[in-house]
C-alpha cells in the first residue's frame, strides 16, 4: 500500500505523523513539566529552551507539545463524533425519505442557520467547559455539515439498482446503510473528514483564544496564542508558533486526504 506513494502525500504523512506522535508521547519527549516555571518571562530561544519561554517563564516547546496533545485529541474526538452521527443520520434520512427525511433535514437547517461559533459561545457560557463537553458540543454542531454531505451522496446511491435489489431481498435498514451505501460513499466522506478535522482544530483554538475553551493550566494551541499575544507588542514571536503549527498541520492533513481520495476513487469500480 505504501509503494507508489506520491511526494506530496509522503510529506503530509511525515508532518502529520510527527504531530500525532508528539501528542501521543508528550510526557516522554517534553523537556520540562507542563506547568513548570523554568526561566524568565519571554526568554529568547536558547539551548535550554529551544523556542524560548512564555509570559510566566514556562518552557514554550513543552507548552507546544502538551498543547498539541490537547488540541489534536479534542479535534480528533470531535471529528469522529461528528462523522459518526452526521453520516449515520444523513444515510438514514436518504434511505427513509418522506417525512423522516423532511423532519431531520429541516431540523438540521435550523441548527445551521445559527452560526456555530455563536451557538457554541451560548452553550459554553451556561455549562462548564471540560474536555468532554467541548468534544460533544463541537462534534454535534459540526455533524450538521456532515449530515448534509452524507445525505446528498446517499440519495444518489440509494436509487441504484443494487440498493433496490437489497430492499427486494428484504434487507433491514442497517444492512442497506452500512453494507450497500457506506462503502460507496466513503471517498467523498474521507475527503471531507480531512477538511473538517482542520476546522475542528481551528474551532477549538478559537474557543480557547476567547477564553471559553480549554481552561488553564492545561495547555492548548489557541490558549498559547491568547497567553502570549501581548508579547507581539514587544517583538516577541511566542504567539506565532501555535499559528505555524496549526497551518502546517492543516496542510499536511489535507495532502493525505487528497491522496486517499485519489486512491479510493480509482479503486475497482469505485465512484468517479
Amino acid at each position: 500500500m505504501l509503494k507508489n506513494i506520491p511526494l506530496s502525500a509522503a510529506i503530509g504523512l511525515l508532518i502529520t505523523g510527527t504531530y500525532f506522535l508528539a501528542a501521543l508521547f508528550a510526557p516522554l519527549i517534553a523537556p520540562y513539566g507542563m506547568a513548570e516555571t523554568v526561566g524568565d518571562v519571554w526568554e529568547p530561544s536558547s539551548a535550554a529552551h529551544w523556542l524560548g519561554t512564555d509570559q510566566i517563564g514556562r518552557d514554550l516547546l513543552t507548552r507546544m507539545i502538551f498543547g498539541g496533545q490537547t488540541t489534536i485529541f479534542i479535534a480528533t474526538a470531535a471529528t469522529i463524533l461528528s462523522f459518526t452521527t452526521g453520516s449515520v443520520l444523513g444515510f438514514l434520512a436518504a434511505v427513509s425519505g418522506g417525512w423522516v427525511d423532511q423532519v431531520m433535514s429541516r431540523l438540521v437547517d435550523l441548527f445551521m442557520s445559527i452560526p456555530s461559533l455563536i451557538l457554541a459561545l451560548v452553550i459554553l457560557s451556561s455549562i462548564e467547559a471540560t474536555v468532554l463537553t467541548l468534544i460533544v458540543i463541537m462534534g454535534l454542531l459540526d455533524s450538521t455539515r456532515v449530515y448534509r454531505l452524507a445525505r446528498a451522496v446517499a440519495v444518489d446511491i440509494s436509487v441504484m439498482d443494487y440498493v433496490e435489489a437489497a430492499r427486494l431481498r428484504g434487507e433491514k435498514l442497517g444492512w442497506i446503510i452500512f453494507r450497500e451505501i457506506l462503502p460507496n460513499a466513503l471517498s467523498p466522506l474521507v475527503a471531507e473528514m480531512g477538511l473538517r478535522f482542520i476546522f475542528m482544530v481551528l474551532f477549538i483554538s478559537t474557543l480557547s483564544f476567547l477564553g471559553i475553551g480549554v481552561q488553564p493550566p492545561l495547555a492548548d494551541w489557541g490558549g498559547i496564542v491568547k497567553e502570549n499575544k501581548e508579547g507581539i507588542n514587544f517583538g516577541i514571536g511566542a504567539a506565532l508558533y501555535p499559528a505555524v503549527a496549526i497551518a502546517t498541520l492543516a496542510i499536511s492533513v489535507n495532502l493525505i486526504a487528497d491522496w486517499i481520495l485519489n486512491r479510493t476513487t480509482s479503486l475497482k469500480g469505485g465512484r468517479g
Partner: protein
Amino acid sequence: MTTPLLKVRGLKIGATVYPPGEKPHDIEIVHGVDFDVEAGKVLGLIGESGAGKSTIGLASMAYGRGGVKLTAGSVEVNGRDVLKAPLKDIRKLRGAEVTYVSQSAAASFNPAKQIMEQVIEASVGQGKFSKAKAQARAVELFTKLGLPDPDTIGNRYPHQVSGGQLQRCMTALALCPEPDLVVFDEPTTALDVTTQIDVLKAIKDAIRDTGVAALYITHDLAVVAQVSDHIMVLRHGEKVEYGTTDQIINTPQEEYTKALVSVRSIEHEEKQPTEPVLRVENITARYKGTNFDVLHDVSVDISPGQTLAVVGESGSGKSTLARVITGLLPPTAGKITFAGRTLSPDLPSRSIEDMRELQMIYQMADTAMNPRQTVGTIIGRPLEFYFGLKGAEKQKRIQELLDEIELGQGFQDRYPAELSGGQKQRVCIARALAAKPKLIICDEVTSALDPLVADGILKLLLDLQRIEDVAYLFITHDLATVRAISDSIAVMYQGKVQRYGTKSEVLTPPFDDYTDLLLSSVPEMKLGWLEDVIANRKMESAGN
C-alpha cells in the same frame, strides 16, 4: 476504376489505459484496417461492442474520441490524407464534406436551441449556404425524411418531438451541408422496433435520393442488411470479413460471421399452461403525483416452471408491471396471488418467504451489483440471509452456483468491474437463483448485451429453468427473444394487455393491428425486407 471517396489503408488506432494499481500504458484497439467507400455507396460496419466500429467511423473524420489516437495508416477523403492535414483543413472537412449522425439524438441536440438553428448550423458556419438557402434545404430534407409539418417542425425545441423524429432531424442535420460522406453511428439502436423501421426507411431513401456515400455502423446485422451495399464485419479491431451485403448474409465464409448470421438459434418447446404460480388480476396502477393510469386492468397468469414474455414498446407499462408485482409500486386496484397466497400490495408488509420466492434480474447488470462487493459476497448474501448458511457450507454453495452459471473457479474474489458484461449478468442470475425462487422477473436482461453474449444468457436461463423449475416473467421489447424462450406471451400497448395467450396462439394470425405492426417490424436478415414490410402495413407506428 474511379478513385474511391473514402480510402482507408492500414489504419491503426491506439489509446492509453489507466488500470487501477498499474502504470498507464498504451494499447492498440484497431490493428490495421483497410477499406474503401465509393461515392454514393453505403458500407455497413458491423461487430460487437469493443470491436472498434465507432472508433473507425470517427477516424474517417480524423477524430479520436477521448484519449484515442490515430497512430498509423492513412485516411483519404476525396484523395486527401486527412490524418496528415493541418487542423485548419480538418475543420473545413468536418460538417461539410463528412458529417456524423450519433446514436442518441436526444443527448446530441442542444435542448435550449430550436431544431432549425442546429440543423443549419454547420452549413452556414462552413459558408456552404446562406441562412435562407440552408433553411430551404432543411425543409426539403424534413419533407424527404417524412417528418410531419416540415415547414414548421424546425421551430420546435428537441423535447417537443418524439425520439424517432429527432433521429430523423439529426439525419437532416447531417445531410444539410450536402456532404460527400455521412457516418451513421447506430442511428436506430435506441429506438423501438416500430419506430426503427420508419427511421430506417427515411434514412435509406434520403441516402438514395441525395446520392451521398455512407458508413453505417451497427451491431444489428438485420438492420445493416437493409441499407448497405457492402458489409465489413469487425472483431477486436480487425477485419473478419468483407463482401457485398448479399454475400455476407447468404454465404458467409468466416466462422464468426456465420455465428452472427445464425444467432437466435435457440429452440424451445412450448409448454401448456397449468395451475398458475403467479396470478395477476385486474391490476390498475399509477405513479404518485400523476393523474393517469400507467396500467389499466392488467391480468396475466404464469405457470410454474414456464416463461411469460411481456412485450411492448417503451412506455407501454411493462416495467411498471414488474414494479407492481415486486411491491415497489402498490397498485390502486387489483389483486396478485403468488404460490396460493395473496401478496400484500406493498413491499414492507410482505413476508421474507414471499420476497425469497420472487426474485428480480435487472437490465443493467452494472448498476445491479454493488461495485464494492466481491462476487462471493453478492451471491453469498442471499444464502446467508434466507438460509443462514455460513463458512464452508456457504462457500460450497457459492461455488455450486458459479458452476451452474458456467463461471467456475476463481470468480469469488473478483469485483464486478473485473467482469465482462455477460459475466456480470450471469452473476446477477446466480444471485437470484441463490434464493431458490419460484419466479424470477427478468427486466430486459439481454438488451444491453451483444447478440452472441445475449444468446448465451438466454440459453443459460432456459437450462436453469429446466433444472430448477423456476418460472420467468420476461420483460422485453425484442421479439426474437420472445420467440426463442416464451411459453406464453402478453403484448402490452399503452398500459393495456393487447393480446395474451400461449406463444402459438399469440403468434398465429389473425392479428390485431398493433400486434401485426410489432411483429412485422422486427428486422429480418433478408434483402428487400424493409420495402416489403412498409408496403404491407395496416397501422402507422407511434413514432409518426
